[in-house]
C-alpha cells in the first residue's frame, strides 16, 4: 500500500501530473482520472471509458494502426479514452498496465533505494546469443542511445556507459512523473548485439 499512498500524496485533490503521454488529474472530490495528453481538452463524454486493468493493458498493447507495442514507453500510445477510479491502489494498477513499474521505479530511485545500472554491466552479464553484445565499443554504445533509445522511447536514460561515469542527474519535478530508464532494456541489448555483429563483420572484411 506504500506505493498507492505515495501516488495518493503526489496527486492531491485538484491537482494534475504529466506521466509520459498520460495526463493524470485528481478531481476535488478525490476521483482519479487518466487520459492521453492529446485529449487534454477533449470532452469527457467523447472519450471511451476504460474501467479495468485488463482493458488498459489491451489498449497499451497496440498502436493506432494496430501494430504490437512490446515497448510500453514507446511514444505511440493511443488516445481517445479515459479511465477513472476513487481508489489510489486501483489507479496505480491501471497506470502499471500502461507503463509497467515506471511509477514504482521513480519512487524507489527518488528515495535512493535503487541505482542506475551502467550499460557495460548489463551487457557483460549476458549469455547465450546475447553474449556478443558486450563487445561493442563506446562509439557503438553512443550510437545505440542516439538511434534506438532517443527516437523510440520516452524514458529518460539515467544509466551511464560504464562504472567510471556518473549516472545522468534527475531533477525532482512537481508537475510530472519522469519515465526513468535505470537499466538498458531487451531492445537495447538486442541492438547492441546487432552492432557487435556488424563490427565483427567489418573487421573480417
Amino acid at each position, binding site marked *: *500500500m*506504500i*506505493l498507492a499512498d505515495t501516488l495518493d500524496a503526489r496527486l492531491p485533490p485538484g491537482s494534475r501530473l504529466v506521466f509520459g503521454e498520460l495526463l493524470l488529474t485528481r478531481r476535488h472530490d478525490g476521483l482519479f482520472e487518466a487520459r492521453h495528453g492529446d485529449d487534454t481538452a477533449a470532452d469527457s463524454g467523447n472519450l471511451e471509458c476504460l474501467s479495468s486493468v*485488463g482493458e488498459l*493493458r489491451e489498449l497499451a*498493447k*497496440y498502436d493506432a494502426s*494496430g501494430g*504490437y507495442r*512490446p*515497448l*510500453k*514507453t514507446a511514444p505511440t500510445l493511443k488516445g481517445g479514452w479515459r479511465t477513472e477510479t476513487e481508489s489510489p491502489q486501483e489507479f496505480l494498477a491501471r497506470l*502499471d498496465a500502461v507503463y*509497467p*513499474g515506471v511509477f*514504482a*521505479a521513480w*519512487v*524507489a530511485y527518488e528515495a535512493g*533505494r*535503487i541505482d542506475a*545500472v551502467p550499460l557495460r554491466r548489463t551487457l557483460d*552479464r549476458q*549469455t*547465450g546469443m546475447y553474449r556478443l553484445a558486450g563487445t561493442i565499443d563506446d562509439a557503438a554504445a553512443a550510437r545505440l542511445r542516439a538511434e534506438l533509445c532517443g527516437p523510440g522511447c520516452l524514458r529518460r536514460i539515467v544509466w551511464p556507459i560504464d562504472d567510471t561515469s556518473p549516472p545522468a542527474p534527475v531533477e525532482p519535478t512537481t508537475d510530472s512523473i519522469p519515465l526513468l530508464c535505470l*537499466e538498458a*532494456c*531487451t*531492445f537495447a541489448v*538486442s541492438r547492441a548485439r546487432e552492432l557487435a555483429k556488424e563490427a565483427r563483420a567489418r573487421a573480417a572484411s
Partner: protein
Amino acid sequence: MPVSKPDSALLILGHGSTENPDSSQPCWDHAETIAASGRFASVHCAFWKEEPSFRQIWPMIEEREVYIVPNFISEGYFTREVLPRELELTGPTTVRHDGRVLHYCDPVGIHPSMTGLLTKRALEMLDGSVPPEEISLIIVGHGTGLNQKSAEAIKAQVDALRAGPVPFARVLDAYMEEPPFVADWRRLAETPNVVVVPFFIADGLHSYQDIPVMLGIESEPTEAASQREVFRHNPRHIDGRVLWYSSAIGTDPSLAEVIVDQVAHFDAHHRA
C-alpha cells in the same frame, strides 16, 4: 493443503515476446485468477522480453516474502541460468540486500499435475463422434535448438501418460526441430484419428504459427494477433485423417492452479 499466503507476494515469470502480442497473455490471465482467489497479498508478472522485465519488477513488490514461479515448460537454460542471473538468486531461497526473502519454485511444466492436464485438454476437444481409444494423442514440443530440455520434459510426460490408465489408443511425442518430427504425424500415428496438444506456455509463434503449417492445417504461417481461426475448426480432415489441434497447454485455465501448486511444492520440499 490449500495454499494461503496473505503476507507473501507471488511473482510469475514468463518469456514474453517482442514480436507476438499473445505470448504474455497466459501469464496475465493466470495472475488475475490467482489474485482473485485472495491467496497471496499481491500477484505480479515479469518477463524476459516484455515489461515489466525481470530487472524492473522489484520496486513494484511491497511484500517482504516473495514466491517466484517460472511459467516455463521445462528446466533448462532459462530456469537455471537466465532467471537466477537476472533476479540475482543464489539458491532455492535468497535473502536480498534489502532484506526481502525470495523463494524460487520449480517451473510449471515439470509439475506432476501437468500429465493429467494433457489428458483433460485432449479429451475436452473431442465432440464424442470418435471414442478416445480410436485416437492417437501426440504431445508436441520444440526439441533441440532453443531449449534442449524441452524434449526431456515432453518425454517425461509421455512416459507418465503411458504408465497410467490413458484412454487413447497411443500416446506419442513429436517435435518441431528433432525427430520424431511433428511434420511426420501421418506416419507416426497409426490410427486414422489424431489429437495434437502443443506443450508450450502460450500460443505464440510456435504453437499458433509454425506447428499448424507442419501439420498441414495452414499452407503458410498466418498472422499472429488472433488465435481464433486456427483453433476454431476442429476437427480437420487432412489426407483422409481426422485431426484435432489444441491451443497451447499453457493457456489452460487450470495452469493457475499448477502455479499455486508449485508454491506448495516448494514449501513441502524446502521449508518443511
